[in-house]
């Protein structure tokens, strides 16, 4: 407690010292937007550099920059990798607005870049544990079935892993998938996957920028422990109409963008649909009979309107669904919907603001029917509404203060389940749950001198689990790992809006950069994060039917503290970019489950939840080559994630399901000629842990597996895979607008059967009574063969 107040006191002092300095000298402000000349698309993270003062700034998520300087004449350079830099002489006497349009660098092959920002940004910026992947890079990587995929691409970055192909989501520094806040234009996406985990829900044609924070998480983000994946959508071409699309083996895609009013308003609409059901129709009809539905689709929409220099509106939406239907016998579908309305307002040249209202929803429906008198319908949902405001105050070139707040209202519908049983209705529905999550934050990015810069702030988060609803009390467990039974006469009911349980936390965030020389810097960061909503899942991979739950009187919020240290060094005029980072994290109240937990359609599932503490530490190395015909990166992570809970593993520490000791990947790109380019991925990972049976015994003639009681007592074998792809760009004919490319790719080139899990069970063929039962270890591989594919992409 004392430490906390000291930290907060220090932060307050830092803030105050800046404001007092700020008032001393008269300054004028240069501000504006930076855009791509051809499309009018704003540029995120483009740099502005003032010669002589050796200072500068970068554009924010909306392409806005602002820098306050003493009145004088300046030479200012505007730059963005892949574009021609522009240098302007500016006689700055009064507040000046200057919008910059950047022209694409014409005399180079389209360069593959990981960070499309200032070349040495990784060294000079205070941010650490952050990866940016440009959509151009993602599009060049070899992809499963030729489908360019945001989430599968970030899994090649250091510190990011997955439990295997087909698993939903991704794991960051050993955290579980629900600890990642995935934002699509600021609205959270609760299930990032199509077809379980094979494809992500983001349509690459509509994505502009992807940024992953693994640590040093700024105070403006909150609500999840491990990472923030910030996906920003394109705004749509402001100058001309553009159509692009692609035809692959799984999806076909089409997007249209263009101006509504030139340089004032534009739109983009992008859709994808799978057609595996159409291709596989003969097979399905043979196996299942007709009337089968198997598809997934998504639709992304965005429009923006520039009201005037001070106001701009953005409206974006996403709708995606996976559908599986087998006549009347069974149906299963799930999907996300998000809608975001944002308003950028400039209060002054130095105070930029953004107000956001969003709605986000994830739901699924399952139905079965033996006949019309015997049916089962089950749906579940998480819905939320939020209001948010962010202010950026460009105090002076050395201080950028951001502050704001957010409130989210959640509605959880864990199960709306009804069964028709010989014509009689049976209602299995579980009660809805409601919660309010709020946060306030303030933060400053400060340059102390040429060598030292800081980013520090604090977030205060508040959570109210509220009615209408009931709170349950549970009996003490006899043994710590046992299910706790509800004490039914202690159930309390609450009216709408009445608090059942509240929590609040201060989450300090701090980063420092110390520049050793022009090409080398040291960085350190600390952050605390709190998470109030949880995905309840105890299966090997999370499933689309897993439910989200709020923190309750029985489930405490999950907490994490992380420190990270890193060294960043670039060589050979920023051709080679390298980094080495170490992190150490501690966790409190992670969700674990009693043995044999029953988590679906169980009103009292809180009695099956155990809360564990955890620790994670690791070392991440990355070497990247950014220039030339041969580019790419190699990353290596050495990591450990462990959990401890009284009721599990005899109370001792055990490795988490996501623990990977070694994780190595290489991604390489080579431009063979003007038309041909090649790329390859190679991945080697240590096997993830699993609990393996050690013994067996019989009851009632059944064979039961038995273990020593140790959780995650073994590891599945090592995972390795090579993918390659080749892209043939169409001939550019002068005067022709259409450009196209063929992408040939091979996933799992040398046909490795990487096990997703090792399972234990009896022979799949019945053992006759009276004979000893046969039990085996089974290797389950999701991708059991080499997968070649071809796709055609076009643009006009």
């Amino acid at each position, binding site marked *: 407690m004392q430490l906390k107040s000291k930290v907060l006191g220090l932060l307050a002092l830092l803030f105050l010292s800046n404001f007092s300095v700020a008032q001393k000298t008269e300054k004028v402000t240069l501000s504006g937007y930076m855009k791509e000349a051809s499309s009018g698309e704003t540029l995120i993270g483009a740099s502005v550099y003032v010669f002589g003062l050796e200072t500068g700034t970068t554009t924010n998520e909306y392409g806005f920059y602002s820098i306050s300087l003493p009145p004088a004449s300046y030479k200012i350079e505007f730059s963005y990798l892949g574009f021609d830099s522009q240098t302007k002489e500016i006689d700055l006497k009064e507040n000046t607005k200057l919008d910059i349009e950047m022209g694409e660098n014409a005399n180079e092959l389209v360069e593959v870049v990981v960070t499309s920002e200032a070349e040495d940004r990784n060294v000079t910026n205070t941010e650490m544990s952050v990866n940016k992947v440009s959509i151009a890079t993602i599009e060049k990587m070899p992809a499963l079935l030729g489908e360019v995929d945001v989430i599968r691409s970030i899994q090649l970055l250091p510190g990011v892993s997955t439990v295997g192909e*087909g698993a939903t989501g991704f794991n960051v520094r050993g955290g579980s998938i629900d600890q990642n806040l995935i934002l699509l234009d600021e609205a959270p996406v609760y299930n990032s996957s199509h077809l379980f985990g094979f494809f992500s829900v983001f349509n690459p044609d509509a994505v502009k920028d992807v940024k992953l924070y693994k640590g040093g998480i700024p105070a403006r983000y909150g609500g999840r422990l491990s990472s923030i994946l910030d996906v920003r959508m394109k705004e749509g071409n402001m100058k001309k109409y553009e159509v692009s699309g692609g035809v692959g083996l799984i999806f076909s895609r089409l997007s249209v963008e263009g101006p509504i009013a030139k340089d004032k308003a534009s739109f983009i609409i992008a859709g994808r649909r799978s057609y595996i059901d159409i291709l596989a129709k003969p*097979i*399905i009809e043979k*196996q*299942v*009979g007709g009337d089968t539905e198997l598809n997934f689709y998504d639709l992304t929409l965005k429009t923006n309107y520039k009201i005037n220099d001070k106001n701009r509106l953005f409206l974006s939406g996403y709708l995606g669904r996976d559908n*599986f239907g*087998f006549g009347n016998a069974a149906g*299963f579908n799930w999907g996300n919907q998000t809608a975001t309305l944002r308003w950028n307002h400039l209060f002054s040249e130095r105070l930029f603001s953004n107000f956001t209202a969003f709605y986000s929803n994830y739901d699924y429906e*399952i139905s079965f029917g033996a006949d019309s008198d015997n049916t*089962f319908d089950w749906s579940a949902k998480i819905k939320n509404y939020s209001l948010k405001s962010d202010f950026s105050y460009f105090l002076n070139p050395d201080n950028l203060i951001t502050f704001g707040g957010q409130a989210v209202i959640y509605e959880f519908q864990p199960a709306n389940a009804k*069964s028709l*049983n*010989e014509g*009689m209705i*049976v209602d*299995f529905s*579980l009660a809805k749950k409601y919660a309010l999550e709020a946060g306030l934050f303030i933060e400053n990015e400060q340059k102390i001198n040429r060598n030292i810069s800081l980013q520090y702030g604090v977030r205060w988060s508040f959570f109210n689990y509220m009615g209408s609803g009931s709170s349950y009390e549970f009996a003490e467990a006899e043994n710590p790992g*046992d299910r706790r039974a509800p004490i039914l006469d202690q159930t309390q009911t609450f009216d709408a809006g009445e608090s059942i349980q509240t929590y609040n936390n201060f989450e300090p965030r701090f980063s420092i950069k110390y520049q050793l020389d022009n090409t080398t810097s040291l960085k350190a960061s600390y952050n605390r994060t709190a998470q109030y909503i949880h995905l309840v899942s105890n299966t090997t991979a999370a*499933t689309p039917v897993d439910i989200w739950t709020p923190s309750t009187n029985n489930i405490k919020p999950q907490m994490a503290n992380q420190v990270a240290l890193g060294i960043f060094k670039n060589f050979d005029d920023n051709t080679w970019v390298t980094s080495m980072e170490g992190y150490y994290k501690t966790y409190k109240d992670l969700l674990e489950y009693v*043995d*044999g937990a*029953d988590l679906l*359609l*169980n*009103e*009292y599932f809180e009695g099956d939840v155990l809360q564990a503490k955890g620790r994670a530490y690791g070392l991440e190395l990355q070497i990247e080559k950014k220039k030339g015909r041969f580019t790419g990166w190699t990353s290596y992570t050495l990591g450990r994630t462990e959990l401890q809970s009284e009721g599990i593993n005899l109370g001792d520490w055990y490795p988490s399901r996501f623990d990977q000791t070694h994780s190595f990947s290489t991604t390489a790109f080579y431009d063979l000629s003007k038309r041909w380019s090649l790329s390859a991925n190679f991945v080697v990972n240590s096997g993830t842990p*699993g*609990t393996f*049976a*050690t*013994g*067996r*015994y*019989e009851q009632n003639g059944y064979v*039961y*597996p*038995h273990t*020593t*009681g140790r959780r*995650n007592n*073994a590891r599945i074998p090592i995972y390795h895979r090579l993918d390659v792809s080749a892209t043939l760009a169409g001939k550019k004919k002068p005067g022709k607008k259409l450009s196209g490319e063929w992408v040939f790719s091979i996933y799992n080139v040398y046909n490795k059967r990487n096990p997703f899990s090792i*399972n234990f*069970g*009896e*022979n*799949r*063929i*019945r053992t006759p*009574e009276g004979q*000893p*039962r*046969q*039990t085996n*270890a*089974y*290797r389950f591989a*999701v*991708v*059991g063969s080499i997968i070649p594919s071809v796709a055609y992409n076009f643009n006009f």
Partner: protein
Amino acid sequence: MKKYFLFLITILLLTSCEDIIDLELEQNESQLVVDAWLNDQPGPQVIKLRRTIDYLDNSFTPEVTGATITVADINLADSTINQIYVFEDDDNDGDYVWTPTTPGEIMIQEGKDYGLLVDLDGDQYVSLSKANRTIPIDSIGYEFLEDEVGQPDGIYAQIYAKDAVGEGDVYWIKTFKNGSFLNKGQEMNLAYDGAFGPGTNSDGILFISPIRFGINRVADSGDGAIDDGDIPPYAIGDSIRVEIHSLTQEAFFHLFQARTQITQGDNGLFATPINNIPTNIFSQNEDAKESPVGFFCVSKVSSAERTIE
């Protein structure tokens, strides 16, 4: 539901696969196994004592001989014993048998509590169970059904029975086709009131459809499987015998977990981790040589039989 998941995965990823592999597994610690599931059916009752073996050791489990086993009908209220039944292993095969002393003598009576005492090498292992009520079977029906996801067309049977009024009755529905017990993990058919689990508002209702249909055999799968291999689907002339065994809540959760564990490998992506299935057999003395696994349960049984014509 799992069936559908699995089906989706296989159809959408024709590339996924499962094969048997050789693994070096951690050495098993040999433990005493008590297999004591008694019921009110006429004739002898058997309790088996065995030892655990390595998971991949596909032989019979070794028997444990030389124990003294008794089951007592007890008054929990005043801790008095009404009657003691002795189980004897005359042929030294680890199967301890109680034989009725008079023809028609039934050990298990509804509503009574029973204690188990296993005396082995000077250590005592004990357990408690209760004979709860069971419910009558109204009828067994069958019909011809067209093919559907994951199951071919053919004759499918249903059991019609209504849960007893009052929350928390639990049942194990055992099916015998032409006298052979349907013994696969996936065929284990459990009911909590009229549905699958607590808190589902299913008290006093007719068993829901998946439970009613849970008396059909599950086809073999995997390498070398022939659909009508060992136990083919129902056909004209087959007899179907169904028994409803009453359980204690503890026994229900034991079997529920056992089923999850036995069928663990069938769920591919969505498998739950292997864990130990809870036991209700406890050592009387703290420094006992054994820490036993297994279960003691006493059941009332109702049954019905029908031949498909």
